[in-house]
């Protein structure tokens, strides 16, 4: 799924995506109960949910913009911040946490200057926390795009991040 929306954002400007959004909305027009499904599809299309997309979904499904906003901010899956070209995901499951996952995050935050959930201004990186990727034996673990980094050490991070242009 990640790969799918990445290539879409990379290849097409946001403006070009709106006709496709209109098609999605048309399938659910006037159906407030489909809100989460439509937001899901819209985020797959745009990579995130900008205000204009929220407005179109609200008017199309006949729900208030407030309700859309409430849903987007409630579920961690939805984001109003565009994703970077490279998605950094640090595991903070119990094992990774106890083995120093938080230190990994602090170092990355310092290196690229963003908060968890944020994207760098040049849209090179975005940073998120995940809860257990099933690699507890390799703790602390980290993912960049689809590459797994085991026993991540803060000292090595600058070099690792540099590989992703």
């Amino acid at each position, binding site marked *: 799924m990640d790969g799918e929306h990445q290539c879409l954002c990379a290849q097409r400007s946001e403006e070009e995506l709106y006709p496709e959004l209109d098609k999605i909305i048309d399938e659910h027009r006037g159906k407030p109960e489909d809100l989460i499904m439509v937001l899901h599809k819209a985020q797959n299309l745009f990579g995130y949910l900008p205000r204009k997309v929220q407005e179109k979904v609200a008017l199309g499904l006949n729900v208030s913009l*407030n309700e859309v906003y409430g849903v987007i901010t409630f579920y961690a899956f939805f984001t109003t911040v565009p994703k970077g070209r490279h998605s950094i995901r640090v595991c903070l499951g119990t094992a990774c946490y106890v083995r120093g996952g938080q230190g990994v995050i602090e170092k990355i935050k310092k290196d690229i200057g963003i908060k968890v959930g944020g994207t760098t201004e040049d849209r090179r990186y975005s940073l998120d926390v995940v809860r257990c990727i099933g690699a507890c034996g390799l703790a602390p673990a980290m993912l960049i795009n689809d590459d797994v980094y085991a026993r991540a050490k803060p000292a090595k991070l600058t070099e690792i991040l540099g590989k992703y242009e």
Partner: protein
Amino acid sequence: MEKARINNIEIEFDEGTTILDAAKTLGINIPTLCHHPDLIPTGACGVCVVEVEGLPTLTRACTTPLENGWNVQTNSARVRNTRKEVVELIISDHDMDCLTCIKNGKCELQELAANLGIRELKYPKFTDKKPIDTTSFAIVRDPNKCILCGRCVQVCSEIQTVNALTFAERSSETVITTASGAGMGNSPCVNCGQCTVYCPVGALYEKSSVEEVWEALNNPDKHVVVQEAPAIRAMLGEEFGMELGTLVAGKMHAALRRLNFDAVFDTNFTADLTILEEGTEVVGRIKAGKDLPVITSCSPGWIKFMETFYPHLRKHVSTAKSPQQMFGTLSKTYYAEQKGIAPEKIISVSIMPCTAKKFEALRDEMKDSGFQDVDFVLTTRELARMLKEAGIDLKTMPDEPADDPLGEYSGAATIFGATGGVMEAALRSAYFLVTGRELENLDILPVRGLKGRKEAEVDVDGIKLKVAVAHGLGNARKLMDKISAQLANGKCEYHFIEVMACPGGCVGGGGQPWGSDMAMRARRGQTLYQEDKSLPVRRSHGNPSIKAIYEKYLGQPNSEKSHHLLHTHYFKRSQIDGKVVED
């Protein structure tokens, strides 16, 4: 009948009765915070917990139906300690500047903390200071005071169906806000202010004009006139500890004189004038069969709601301005002329049970006098605060009449403040306008009372007039959906419709005293009907001052001059941010 025991007292109850309601019938009050009798209980706060024998955790009394055979304790040591600790948790993240809070002395959280004997702040505040939302012309929202009980969201979405407020984020970051945090002034909020009535703490309140009015009153170069809406006389007494439903019209006029207003008039005068203007319009449109049904235009919350959600019905809404705005225009034209006062020296103040009136007064088109027609709007609560600041006790005031020429009123005007009142007043005069004879039985009972939607059929010389009344915007929405569907099919069954934005009408307005519920609104409405009954003139067209203004100034209802000064037009608004959009 089911049987159970509460605090060892046996009780018989109907299935489905909550523990809270069942206890109440025994005279046992369980403390609550988020619960409100007008709203569906959500159990958000956890204050009303009780102990049910045999259940492992405590149980919420507001959301849990009592069950056969249960043994409930509402004041066991475990319950009392836990209840107190829940309140200690809630106040840990609440701004504690109670002495300078607008709700000081009227706050439900303050009262609860006092009742439970909370004496120390145990825990530190865990959220950062948030900015206060002042984007609206009518309502201020202070998220630092908000305890997230959700009453405002409930009333805005379930009762008013406006959906201007929402819960957003989650966990420690949970807030009540507007979409993208853009502020109430950039939302579809219609300024009805019901959120300010239901908020238990000081998180939602009117944008105050008290300081501006003090300044005007202290300025010797200004001639400051005041009008009071019909509903004020049925609720202002509550602010001074008078019995609910006490009529204080005369005391209110006297108190305003003691605040040094240069002339104390009455919105009831322009309510009568509204009936003549709107009634003439209705009769004309019925005779011509044009743009029916006609819908009333007195309620500014309803007007913005209509512009936002039903703009296609604009041509059905009467062009007559609301009584407040008619008064504003006339205070700076007719009155200025009669008295020989330069209109730019006049400051026109209104006392309203309403927050939407603040927005209405600031509309760009409300300048037909050549100036802003109404300068400042004060809610009932703001007037009470001014009177208290000046040491004026309403209870001790003599009864005084309002001043001429904008003060005399009929019984038809005073019932404007209750749902159905405008309809009843209009029918009393419409009958005369059509037939030339007076309607004999003036009490049109089917349009009175708190039923959400009311209908009646009135025979006017063989013409059967079908009328409908809706109060509360959720009820208005249902009626407008019905009308829209009928109009789409070519024919609507109704001739004339009254809509009031607030449940109960103006006696239930967003500017009413804090701590009100529907039962109180109903009681205030009765007070207005009692005043109507006691007045010598009960028909708007019988008001001598109304006859005089047409003779001296306006000519006749719907004359060119009336149209210029007393009528308005409407816009289409965005459902996203409430701003005017092109058609």
